[in-house]
Every structure is written in structure tokens, then in C-alpha cells.
């Protein structure tokens, strides 16, 4: 086998399978992870390969999925719990925030919580208001949690493997829109990407575009368009919302003195707000323009396809924002 073009869902599947082969303590649990092959087919064939002990279908009980993963992790296993979509992870929020993120601290290091909660995230395909959230930053609000949000298949593999091997709880967000999108994915079973390390996707000297998950695609598309006009965008993929790595962002901003943050999520109290706050706090003297945010519109997502498209960010909205700061 050699590195090859692989869709993100397959890259995630490789990562999970390799880690389960590597470490007996790793197991998957969640709704439809077994006989159904996973709602998003990330665990396709796992039940057959690993058996029902390590591939555990659960009832529709998000509170119990979250809490049982915490308990199993504290006791020495390494659960990878799948919540079908991040919208349903709100039901597991208490287990994640009050327990996964706190047991290590609150009991003074007596317990660890090496669990991963995989969630599918994002807008689009007329999934409607309750099924279209991208609320990763809410989970990233809390110390004790890590939050991963890969933008492509290669990163997804290296980040998921690192998350599973880490001793801290990780919310691992997988953008539904990115599942079918391919990238060249290493087949090295020890291909790991470090936790909390952002990635320089494209160099440029005029403006810094900061994005994560699906936002990276829009940023890169906008950079292509603007390059034709002689505007060179530097594009940075945060990859992780916690730990939030601002090193590359700051380095880039010192050069460009301008920044646009692109995310699929809603604007209020978002990643864009955090990046803007950190830049003004640390690099005030370098600022030549207001920091702009490109987000989804501040509305619950409606069903009608036309309205949905209006509400979502896209590359053109990024281009427009860049023009405002130049």
C-alpha cells in the first residue's frame, strides 16, 4: 500500500482501525456504530472485524454515552464514543464539561480521562435548524477539554490518531460536508499530527486568513480568486480550537497587518471574536485595519434551499471581506 487519495471518511476509518489494532483498550461505542456500519460509515466493517465487545452499539442515550465513556476512560479504557451529530452532543454536554473536562483537575490528578467523542458537524443539505449546528467553540470554552476540527482527510487521520493516543478528553468534530472530500493520506500507522498545532496552508503577504474545518476551503478558494488580482493571502488552518495555537497567526499578522477569520459557525462569541481579541491584545501596534469575520448569518437555519445558501458563508463572502480590509 502507498499513500493515496482518500476521502475524509475513509481516512478517519483508517485512523480508528489502526488505533484499535494497536491498542486493545481502544473501543468504539455509539448509536449505529456496529451493524449499521456507522451513520457516516466511518466504522464500516468494524463489527465484523473486532466483534461486539469492542464495537458497541448503544441505545439512543447521549447522556449515558457521554458519561459511560468518561467512566470507562477513568477506569483505564480508551473509549471513542460517536455521537451521530454534534447537535445531539448537547445532550452529552454535561458529561463532557462537568466530568470529562474536570475529573483530572477536581480530584487533583488522581484520575485521567483519555476519551474521544467523535461528532459530525455542520450546515447544508437542508438539514434544518436543529440539525445544522457548528457549535465547537462552546465545547472549546472549557479548560480540561481539547477540541479538534480538521479541514481535510490527511489532517483528519493524523489528528484523530493523536487524539486517541492522548490522555485528555477530546471532542473531535468532523464536518459532514468534508466526509467525501479526498486528500493524499499517509498509510503510515504512526502518522500523527501534534495536538494544538495550526497549519500554514498558503503563503502570502497582504492579508492573513484564519479558518478552521470547512472554513479553510472557502479561505483557499478566495485566496485563488484574489491572487488573480495580485492580492496574496496567507491562509492558516487552526485545526484545533483548544489548545488554540495562535503562533502562526501572530507571525503572519506581523507581516500582513490585516486579518479575516472565516468559520462556518455563528458569529456571536465565536472563534473569530477570540482571534480578534488576541490579536488586538498582543499585536495592537501591527494593526492596519479592523479584523473582519466571515460567519454564518446570525439566524436559525431555515429549510428552504435558497435561504440556507444565503445564510451560509462562502468564498465570495471571504473575497468581499478581504476587499474591506485592504
Amino acid at each position, binding site marked *: 500500500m502507498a499513500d493515496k487519495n482518500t476521502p475524509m471518511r475513509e481516512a478517519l476509518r483508517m485512523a480508528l482501525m489502526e488505533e484499535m489494532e494497536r491498542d486493545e483498550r481502544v*473501543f468504539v461505542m455509539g448509536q449505529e456504530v456496529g451493524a449499521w456500519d456507522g451513520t457516516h460509515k466511518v466504522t464500516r466493517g468494524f463489527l465484523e472485524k473486532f466483534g461486539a*465487545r469492542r464495537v*458497541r452499539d*448503544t*441505545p439512543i*442515550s447521549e*447522556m*449515558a*454515552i*457521554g*458519561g*459511560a*465513556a*468518561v*467512566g*470507562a*476512560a*477513568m*477506569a*483505564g*479504557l480508551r*473509549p471513542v464514543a460517536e455521537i451521530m451529530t454534534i447537535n445531539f452532543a448537547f445532550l452529552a454536554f*454535561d*458529561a463532557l464539561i*462537568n*466530568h470529562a473536562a474536570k*475529573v*483530572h*483537575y*477536581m*480530584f*487533583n*490528578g*488522581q*484520575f*485521567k480521562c*483519555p476519551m474521544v467523542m467523535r461528532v459530525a458537524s455542520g450546515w447544508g443539505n437542508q438539514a434544518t435548524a436543529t440539525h445544522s449546528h457548528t457549535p465547537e467553540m462552546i465545547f472549546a470554552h472549557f*479548560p*480540561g477539554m*481539547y477540541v479538534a476540527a480538521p479541514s481535510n482527510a490527511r489532517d483528519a487521520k493524523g489528528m484523530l490518531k493523536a487524539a486517541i493516543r*492522548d*490522555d*485528555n478528553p477530546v471532542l473531535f468534530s468532523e464536518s459532514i460536508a468534508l466526509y467525501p472530500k479526498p486528500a493524499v493520506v499517509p498509510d503510515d500507522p504512526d502518522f500523527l499530527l501534534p495536538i494544538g498545532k495550526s497549519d500554514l496552508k498558503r503563503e502570502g503577504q497582504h492579508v492573513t486568513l484564519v479558518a478552521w474545518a470547512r472554513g479553510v476551503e472557502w479561505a483557499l478558494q478566495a485566496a485563488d480568486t484574489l491572487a488573480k488580482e495580485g492580492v496574496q493571502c496567507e491562509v492558516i488552518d487552526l485545526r484545533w480550537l483548544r489548545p488554540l495555537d495562535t503562533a502562526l497567526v501572530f507571525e503572519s499578522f506581523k507581516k500582513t497587518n490585516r486579518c479575516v477569520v472565516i468559520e462556518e459557525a455563528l458569529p456571536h462569541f465565536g472563534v473569530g471574536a477570540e482571534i480578534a481579541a488576541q490579536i488586538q491584545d498582543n499585536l495592537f501596534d501591527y494593526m492596519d485595519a479592523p479584523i473582519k469575520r466571515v460567519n454564518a448569518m446570525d439566524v436559525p437555519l431555515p429549510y428552504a434551499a435558497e435561504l440556507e445558501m444565503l445564510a451560509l458563508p462562502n468564498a465570495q463572502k471571504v473575497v468581499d471581506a478581504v476587499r474591506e480590509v485592504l
Partner: protein
Amino acid sequence: MAAALPEKATLLEWYRQMVLIRRFEERSKELFHQKKIGGVYLHLYNGQEGTGVGALAALRPQDHVITAYRDHGIAIARGVDPNRIMAEMYGKSTGVSGGKGGSMHLASREHNFWGGYAIVGGHLPLAAGIALKAKYNGDDEVVLCFIGDGATNNGYFHEALNLSAVWDLPVVWLIENNLYGMGTALEDASGQTKLIKRAIAYDMKAFDPMDGQDVFEVHETVKKAVDYARKKGPVLLESMTYRFEGHGMSDKMYAARVDEMSRFKARDPITLLHDKLCELYPDIGPTLDTIDKQCEAVVTESEKYAENSPAPTFEDLTRHIYV
């Protein structure tokens, strides 16, 4: 009781634990009012000692214990050092949780005491997860999970019990029914007030409700339940008991329940055990008096230990956020 009584040394140990818990809680209450112990709650175990002590005596060291925020008595009965419990309540670095957990978050990994948890019902799926570890690894271990009656009405109870039934997990779910969830009476909170009947919903093994004031009955029942859980799967138990000090320090309602309180105080679990011991061993009085004094000394010592322990430092503030 049909079963043979445990030997004298065991009974004296139960007596010691129950008296120690009572003295510890009485002193904790005073220290709370003196503001030596912080927080706004302090949930005391007075009155429920028969349940905690009787139940924990049915476990082996490799078994696991987890409970809610009314956790001081459980920690003591599990053998955690009272000095370190008191130090935790003082918020000192020598506390079981380094002064970062407080009264509601005692834990001791070495005792397989997984902690007190303060989100009502939140620890139930954790118990299921710990039991899953045992089952997954083929370890011969059981999890004993204490549940307040108030926790039986939130989603965690349903989801965790159901999951344990689906997966045949080795958990003993023990409801400590002290008749109130904070200030709300059971009949105002539960459609089904016979909480043991909840087991029917999960086709789960259950035993008849226990007299929680009778440490013998609790011990005997929990022992049977632990055996069952070890071999077959989850069990639901209900212990009928009472809080002598109300929900916590902010509870202004409990003192008004005079008749109910006097009914339960007439069946104080410590008095019942004391009387039983005197009946079994007519000349045991001086021994019990000695134990009473020893327990007082242990509590006094724990207070001194806490007083003299250092506060956590600035470094502790940011330690253990991540591994």
C-alpha cells in the same frame, strides 16, 4: 434475619465506622458555622450511616464505589483517612483532592472510591463506564453506585440503568431513599414513589427495599446484590433512610418536620446497632464507650491536621488541568 451474624470484631468495626461518621459530621457542621469549612452547602450523612457502612462492608477492595455529593460518610466507610477528608473540606493541599474538590468531591483512587459528584445523577453513567471496564477486561469486580432518591427523576438515571441492563454490567444501583430531593418530598417528585419498581422498566433484578437504619439488613441485602451483579448483571436496591440534618446547611425546612424526624431518630442506626451489640454481648458497654472516645479523638486529630496543613499554592491553581 435468617443469615448468621458477622463475628464480633466485624460488628465492632461497623460500630466504629458509624460513630466516626456521626462525630465527623457533627464537628463538620460546627466548623462550617465557624467558617473553617467553606462552600454554601455541606451535605451531612447523619442518619444514613447504617446504609453506607452496611453496604460498603459487602464489597472487596478491588470493587468500586461511587456516590453523589453526600459523600463524607462513604469516604470514611471506605477507609479513606479522616485527616485527609477534613483537610479537603478545609481546602488544604493535604486534602484527598488537594483542596481543589471540596466537600462534594472527595475521592481516593487507591481505595477504588471514584468520588463524590455534584451534578445530580451525573455519576450514574460513570458507574456504568467503570463497570464496563470490568466486563471488558474480564475483571472480577463490581461497582456499587449510591443514588439519592432525588436523582431517580432525571434522565441520567433512566439512561444509565437502561444501558447497564442492555450490557449486563456488574453494577449495584443503591437508591438511598431519604424521602426528599433537596426540599421536595418524594411524593411531589415521583409518579411512582415505590422506587424499587423502577427496576421493572429495565427488566432488572431487584431486592425488596431495605430498612436503611438497620445495618445488618443493609449488609445482608447488598451482599446478595453484589454476588448477583458479579455473576449476572445489574441490580437495583432501595434503602429506606432519613437525613437527620436536612439536605445541607441551607435547608430551613427540615426542622419543621418534627414528627417525622422523631420517628426516624427513634430508629437511629447507631442506637439500633449499639442496642443489638449490648443484647448479643451483655458486657460490651465499656468497649463501646472506648470506641466512642476513640472516634472523638480521631475527629479532633483530623481538625488539627487540617488546621496545620498548608493551603494550595498558585502553582496548584493551574496544575492538573491537562495530563
